């Protein structure tokens, strides 16, 4: 994201205005969609003034302000952010608290309408050509309070929609009983339109992107998530008590919130996310299921860790199992829906996504198997609610990208170096959004990729050229891919080093926790109803053969120098405490 203060346009990436329009669909408004980094509203419709004006600044003073400028992600063109035309996107209360949501053919229309209005930005008009403030109108559009909305048909499938015109009208709300008309024709929001507890569709509208795409999660499917099924009474023998998907509030059972609206969460593996609130109010597996938990849910199947407990729960009683393994490791054994596996930003400066189906398979020991009905996660150590490090299943997203390597004047010491991502609009200025001439398809999949030393050298040379503002795109461009940093070796060639152990804070592997789609004991790892039982993990129990858990293949580089994907086993990636390894 663009800094607040910038010395030149070349330093500006995504600004607050750009983010509100393009990313605001999955954020509930308020905060950075409403106020600048000085705490001023970007534009106050009551006074007709921009926020910077209250600080005595003029438009000329904020040309390079990350809150009041916008750089086109297409061509890098700089303009003043027209907050006066779009308005601001306020915290959208009803986006979550609307009771009767519109779900059409499984599509969350409230989310779609809101996204479309935001992405309409300052080009949004009504059918008469009059201006419509795309950001300010997003909350209204989300409620379906319009007579017509036109979407840009050129937006590719899978991308959030963009509205070209929006005719605000409250009549649909009146017709639906959501809005009540007073004698003086003013409107009131009907009590029945407001839900104190957000339904799952309120959460899923936004979380479908990080959940489905990044993690392969499924919701609203009783066969694929024991909690969704259980909370909504979908697995008992009485169909009359089933809670329909549109009324499900299963999300809030584990992720409740209070008046402060901080929705309870766990501990992310993707950097930090207000870690001071980790696990605050969150209902973990252990809270609800452990026999001695003070928060135990009486409806949750009990997990008895005492020696001599129930036979079917023996795995829980084995010494150190629950000390080392999260519940997720065994109860989220695989995923059935594809997820994003690789984003290659290096070859074109675009963001093409490659799926788990390309790199993984239903055979965890053979990623090339043709059965793609399942894929198996990796594992990462993560601090659990009780402060204990345990293994958790992860879908590790791999990225390939170009960075500017600043050696900080100490070439012999990597630990103080910085590798900063180069904004993609600047990379595309070099590539024109296509592979450079000279790049080849080394993987044989019909798509070119930058992976050989010659190709990397070609890109490094090109990225030393100037952007549209006459500024070198990078002085010392490096490719970050597969846990390695590829750089100019100073002799016309390319060298590389491993990020791990270098001391440089950079990454090309991003662990997204599997977390949801919990399966019952009968389908968990080690289930005695399954084929392998203990041998699913323990090599000493399967004739010393590779195990489906600790010898499964984990992708670490989508394409090595030879064009072939590079895998490591869990055994190679995850170090267990000495003497406690399962082999």
């Amino acid at each position, binding site marked *: 994201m663009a800094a607040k203060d910038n010395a030149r346009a070349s330093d500006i990436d995504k600004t607050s205005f750009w983010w509100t329009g393009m990313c605001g669909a999955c954020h509930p408004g308020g905060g950075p969609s409403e106020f600048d980094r000085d705490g001023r509203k970007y534009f106050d419709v009551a006074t007709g003034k921009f926020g910077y004006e209250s600080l005595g600044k003029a438009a000329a003073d904020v040309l390079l302000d990350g809150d009041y400028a916008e750089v086109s992600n297409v061509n890098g063109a700089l303009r003043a952010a027209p907050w006066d035309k779009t308005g601001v996107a306020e915290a959208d209360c009803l986006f979550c608290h609307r009771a009767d949501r519109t779900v059409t053919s499984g599509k969350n229309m409230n989310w779609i309408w809101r996204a479309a209005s935001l992405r309409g930005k300052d080009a949004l008009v009504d059918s008469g050509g009059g201006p419509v403030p795309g950001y300010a109108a997003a909350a209204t559009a989300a409620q379906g309070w319009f007579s017509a909305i036109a979407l840009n048909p050129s937006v590719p499938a899978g991308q959030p929609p963009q509205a070209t015109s929006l005719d605000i009208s409250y009549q649909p709300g009146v017709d639906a009983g959501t809005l009540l008309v007073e004698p003086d024709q003013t409107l009131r929001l009907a009590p029945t339109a407001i839900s104190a507890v957000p339904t799952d569709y309120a959460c899923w509208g936004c979380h479908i992107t990080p959940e489905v795409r990044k993690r392969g999660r499924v919701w609203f499917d009783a066969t694929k998530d024991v909690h969704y099924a259980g909370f909504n009474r979908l697995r008992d023998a009485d169909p009359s008590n089933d809670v329909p998907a549109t009324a499900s509030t299963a999300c809030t059972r584990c992720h409740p919130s209070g008046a402060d609206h901080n929705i309870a969460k766990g501990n992310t593996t993707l950097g930090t996310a207000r870690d001071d609130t980790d696990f605050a109010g969150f209902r973990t597996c252990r809270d609800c299921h452990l026999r001695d938990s003070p928060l135990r849910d009486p409806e949750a199947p009990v997990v008895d860790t005492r020696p001599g407990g129930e036979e079917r729960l023996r795995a829980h009683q084995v010494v150190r199992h629950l000390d080392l393994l999260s519940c997720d490791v065994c109860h989220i054994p695989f995923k059935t829906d594809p997820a994003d596996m690789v984003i290659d930003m290096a070859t074109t400066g675009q963001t093409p996504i490659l799926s788990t189906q390309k790199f993984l398979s239903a055979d965890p020991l053979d990623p090339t198997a043709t059965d793609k009905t399942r894929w198996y996660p990796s594992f990462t150590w993560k601090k659990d609610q009780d402060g204990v490090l345990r293994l958790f299943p992860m879908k590790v997203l791999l990225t390939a990208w170009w960075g500017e390597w600043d050696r900080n004047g100490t070439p012999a010491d990597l630990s103080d170096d910085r590798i900063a*991502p180069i904004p993609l609009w600047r990379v595309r200025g070099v590539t024109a959004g296509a592979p450079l001439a000279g790049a080849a398809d080394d993987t044989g999949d019909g798509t070119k990729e930058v992976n050989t030393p010659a190709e990397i050298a070609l890109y490094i040379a090109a990225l030393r050229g100037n952007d549209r503002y006459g500024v070198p795109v990078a002085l010392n461009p490096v490719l970050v891919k597969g846990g390695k940093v590829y750089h100019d070796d100073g002799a016309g060639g390319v060298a590389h080093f491993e990020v791990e152990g270098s001391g440089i804070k950079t990454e090309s592997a991003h662990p997204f926790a599997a977390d949801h789609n919990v399966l019952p004991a009968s389908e968990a790892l080690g289930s005695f109803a399954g084929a392998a039982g203990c041998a699913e993990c323990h090599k000493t129990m399967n004739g010393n053969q590779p195990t489906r858990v600790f010898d499964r293949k984990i992708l670490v580089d989508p394409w090595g120098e030879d064009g072939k994907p590079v895998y490591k086993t869990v055994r190679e990636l995850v170090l267990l405490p000495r003497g406690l390894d399962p082999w």
Partner: protein
Amino acid sequence: MTIRRLRSRSWAMGCLVGAAFATGCGGGGGGGGGPDVPAPATGDHTAIVLRDRLGQPIALGSKEPYSPRETCGGCHDVDAMANAYHFQQGRTTAAGTIQTKSDFYGDNRPWLGSDGMYGKW
């Protein structure tokens, strides 16, 4: 700096109504609490006047967008609620102070503008 703008007339009522209107715990507060206290069912809210960005009641036939801040903010402390992580993504502290800065942790990651997702995009 602090961006939370507490309204004296709305704070007390915001606490009361907000507690009853909480997402999932019906008044747990402090980031969660258990689900033992049932939240009010749909329909327990009063009918509220729909207002535009200038705070004016919206009439049928209006083309003005409604304002959540003006519509809900008469009773609820919108700023306090919108200081939650889902809105701010780490842009503010728990106290509502804007904390953004480049290289937030001072470890050569200039793209980290906060202790949350804010700044990473």
